[in-house]
């Protein structure tokens, strides 16, 4: 690979090492494996090898009933379980023409935005940890503990919620929980400031991330990068605003977009800072929802044996890792005919091979962490 310049014309033969990063590895986000060809520091290629967490969730969809499949969707991305629940339930509702109650919609948005904050906390925290700053990760987990407690109050579980059901939500949100969530948001907004002071403007952190692994808008379209990764490339696209669903049209929030502040547009730093700003926006949404929460039933009347008419539908939801699409085909029976989960992390992984040529091993870590890939989403 390298030539010694003073050797009178004969190249000094060195070989690239082929190292396998993973599947057990303290850095990669879940069980991922990369086959890295490197000469010690600079990689010539990094091929992802996925499939270690494949649980055939799509095949299971054809064997269980519609209501019974909702807990399985939790596991498709356990860090953002509310969104997968919601996407599947929206698909079933669209097929059967069911309208969700108004209170149910608001409860859904509250639960989802809390989950978005929790997921972004993990994303930001593990990002800091992979770069070497371990303290923000634990501070993020501390905040996430409070959110997990709220989830436990709302639906009984801390990680895999099974909360959003077909027709609404499983349990109502009590007024005491609403009061506590408001207190939490008051406490949380200065904490985001703390992450900024500790991490975002830290010179070493910025040097590690600025101008590293830039994704251009053309690449983003070719590889179908979605979510905060796409917004970091400069495109102001958010499903909550552009293909609105639920009660998002009535809520006011801004969409943070990467602007290349510390490096080029679309580098790792932009992807990081977009997530931090999204947490602040979620706080705003939560405040509005808690104020506007109407009275009424939390779930519409849906038959126990749910049999939507035959048809197919593709539903998108703005999950923390991007546009989560559920393509659901029904043939009129009480089991879905086909459930297809299209996740943002799967397509983001397909980009890594192209972008990682010429990067250093440490930059590969930064790239994976900045794309916020998540093994359960990739492998399903």
């Amino acid at each position, binding site marked *: 690979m390298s030539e010694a310049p003073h050797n009178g014309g004969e190249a000094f033969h060195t070989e690239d090492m082929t190292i396998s990063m993973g599947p057990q590895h303290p850095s990669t986000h879940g069980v991922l494996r990369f086959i890295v060809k490197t000469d010690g520091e600079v990689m010539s290629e990094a091929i992802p090898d996925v499939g270690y967490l494949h649980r055939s969730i799509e095949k299971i969809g054809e064997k269980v009933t519609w209501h019974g499949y909702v807990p399985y969707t939790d596991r498709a991305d356990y860090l953002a379980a509310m969104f997968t629940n919601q996407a599947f339930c929206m698909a079933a509702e669209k097929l059967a023409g069911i309208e969700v109650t108004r209170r149910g919609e608001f409860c859904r948005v509250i639960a989802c935005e809390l989950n978005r904050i929790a997921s972004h906390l993990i994303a930001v925290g593990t990002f800091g940890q992979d770069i070497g700053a371990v303290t923000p990760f634990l501070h993020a987990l501390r905040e996430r503990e409070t959110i997990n407690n709220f989830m436990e109050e709302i639906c009984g579980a801390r990680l895999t919620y099974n909360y959003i059901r077909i027709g609404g939500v499983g349990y109502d949100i009590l007024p005491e929980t609403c009061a506590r969530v408001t207190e939490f948001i008051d406490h949380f907004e200065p904490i985001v*400031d703390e992450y900024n002071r500790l991490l975002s403007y830290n010179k070493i952190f910025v040097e590690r991330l600025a101008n590293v692994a830039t994704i251009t808008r053309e690449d983003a379209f070719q590889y179908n990068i979605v979510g905060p990764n796409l917004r970091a490339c400069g495109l102001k696209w958010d499903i909550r605003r552009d293909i609105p669903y639920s009660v998002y049209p009535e809520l006011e929030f801004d969409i943070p977009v990467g602007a290349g502040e510390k490096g080029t547009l679309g580098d790792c730093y932009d992807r990081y800072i977009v997530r931090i700003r999204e947490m602040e926006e979620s706080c705003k949404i939560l405040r509005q929802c808690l104020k506007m929460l109407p009275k009424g039933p939390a779930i519409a009347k849906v038959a126990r044996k749910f049999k939507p008419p035959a048809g197919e539908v593709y539903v998108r939801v703005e999950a923390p890792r991007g546009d989560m699409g559920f393509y659901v085909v029904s043939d009129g029976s009480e089991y879905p005919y086909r459930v297809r989960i299209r996740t943002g992390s799967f397509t983001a992984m397909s980009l890594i091979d192209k972008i990682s040529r010429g990067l250093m091993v*440490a930059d590969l870590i930064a790239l994976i962490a900045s794309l916020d890939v998540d093994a359960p989403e990739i492998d399903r």
Partner: protein
Amino acid sequence: MQQLVDQLIQEGNFPGVPKEIVYAAAMLLAAFAVLSFFVAPLAGVTSWLERRVWARMQSRVGPNRVGPQGILQWLADGIKNLLKEDIIPAAADKWLFSLAPYVVFVGFLATFVVIPFGSQLIVADLNIGILYLLAVTSLVVVGILMAGWASNNKWSLLGGMRSAAQIVSYEIPAGLAVLTIIFAAGTMSMQGIIKAQGWAPWDWLLFYNPFTFGAFFLYFTAALAEGNRTPFDIPEAESELVAGYVTEYSGMRFLFFFFAEWGNLYVIGAIATTLFLGGWQVPPIPWVTDQPVLLAILQFVVFFVKAYFWVFVAMWVRGTLPRVRVDQLMSLCWKYMVPLSFVCLLGTAGWMVLFPRGNRLASVGMFLVGVAILLQFAKRVRYQIRHARPELYWKPYI
């Protein structure tokens, strides 16, 4: 210490035994005493302190069960590791693999011979004391390379090579900063350097002139890099290389590497104190200076506190800063720190030509500058603490 042994021989305590054997036995005894009664508990308590400080900075508790406040945690860890199965990878080079931790350990332990804990409390006051220190700490590189190579693991090899490159590169700014002090003090012996300073802060070599002030920060940063501490802990970068050159090690051999690292923290602090902060110099309190034992204890305590403060700062830095990337590390060393250390060196040389016996006014001025910087820093810390609203963490609401 040599006088003490000579005195014992003259009193006829060792009839018929040649002098060299008595010397050798005395040295072994002294080394054993220092190792087991000072170094081992020191490294152990430093490891406990690091885990406590680390945890408190991350809103956790840290080890607090074994012994009062968990202070015997290192003893429990040591015993556990001694009882572990001795695993050597099948394809590893057995001799090098087993030998590597001890080479690293020797490189670190041999420094304790010249560390001046008090005016009489030094094992051997070599007149090339500081040069000996710099030379002996370089043995660590050999040990790390051995560990990385003998593990037969590509990740270990990467870690070992990165570490070797890092340590060797950062020897230069460290050595140049030390050379600045040698210029200012006029001698390489550790006790001599301390004697060239006074007990008051403005008599310390830290504030001698602006160049030694800069040399101190250069030395501390370079020493952190040599000790593989964050922000330069790339060889042990957990998230990148599993554990770098210690990946294949387990049990006591694993502990030896970290023993050397924590102990090295103290050595860094000790060298910083000796060279820049006046070592064991105490103010001349009349009723203490008359009694040698009390004086020795006071000097030991003063030295220990000063050195340990820098250990705490190193832990603080570790909990705060992210890691630098390898090429940024190298460029930091060669493009920024080496030229700056040359500037400090030449500046001090020029200063000494201008003011051969030092400039008291400049020293006091530098001291005031240092105090101003410290006050600014304290203001910033207070601002951060107030904005973090710690009262909300003490009283969680669920």
